[in-house]
């Protein structure tokens, strides 16, 4: 599992790759909350390279969404991989999150 956070103007992009599971989701949670705590007014979670995500990974995304709402910031998912999309669907969260096809779409 790899996490990279980059910034584009006032948007923080947290890119995840690999398996997000009970072992690795605490780091994902930390990275998302850190990005939301920084000066940026929007945070995007780029899930293009996510090969697997479980309920603990989904919980990190939900927590980030909540925190963003509380702080009046934008939080969205970007380039959601098939593997991740399936789990969001099963968890009935595919309509709860804003999902963009690409970082360009999300920023445009």
């Amino acid at each position, binding site marked *: 599992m790899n996490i990279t956070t980059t910034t584009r103007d006032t948007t923080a992009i947290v890119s995840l790759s690999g398996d997000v*599971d009970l*072992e690795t989701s605490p780091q994902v949670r930390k990275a998302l909350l850190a990005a939301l705590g920084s000066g940026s007014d929007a945070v995007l979670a780029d899930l293009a390279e996510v090969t697997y995500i479980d*309920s603990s990974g989904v919980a990190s995304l939900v927590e980030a969404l909540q925190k963003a709402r509380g702080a009046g910031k934008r939080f969205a998912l970007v380039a959601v991989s098939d593997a991740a999309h399936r789990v969001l669907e*099963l*968890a*009935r969260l595919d309509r*709860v999150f804003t999902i963009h096809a690409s970082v360009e779409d999300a920023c445009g």
Partner: protein
Amino acid sequence: MSEALIRVQTRAVAERLRLLRSLVRETAASAGLGDDGVRDVVLAVDEACQNVVRHAYAQAQSERPLELEVLSDAGSLTFVLRDAGRAVDLDAIRPGPPDALRPGGRGLYLIRQVMDRVEHRPGPGGTGNELRLSKLIPREAR
């Protein structure tokens, strides 16, 4: 007649889940569940195993056995998960779709969504749980 394909024993810790997933993936793929079926079964068994990691034992407990057995018959694949924690009544936990804005509480829901049969038996004498998760194998793959 069902055949035991494999039985695996390990410690219920987060660091073993990846290995268990790869084992589930391999058995599900050779049983003829297509890509989508394999992916769903991997998720369900991982969620069940992670419940053992998180709920079956006190955090400080170092003995934390987890056993996973894979049974196969002509029409289905069954994953039997055993822990030696406090016996619980999982059938009593039947939430609908979890609250969109609560982070946790999605594991059992995902398991029940994805598997064709979910059976839980509390162990005798208040100790241990056995969870049996079955998935039907598409007729054309048998």
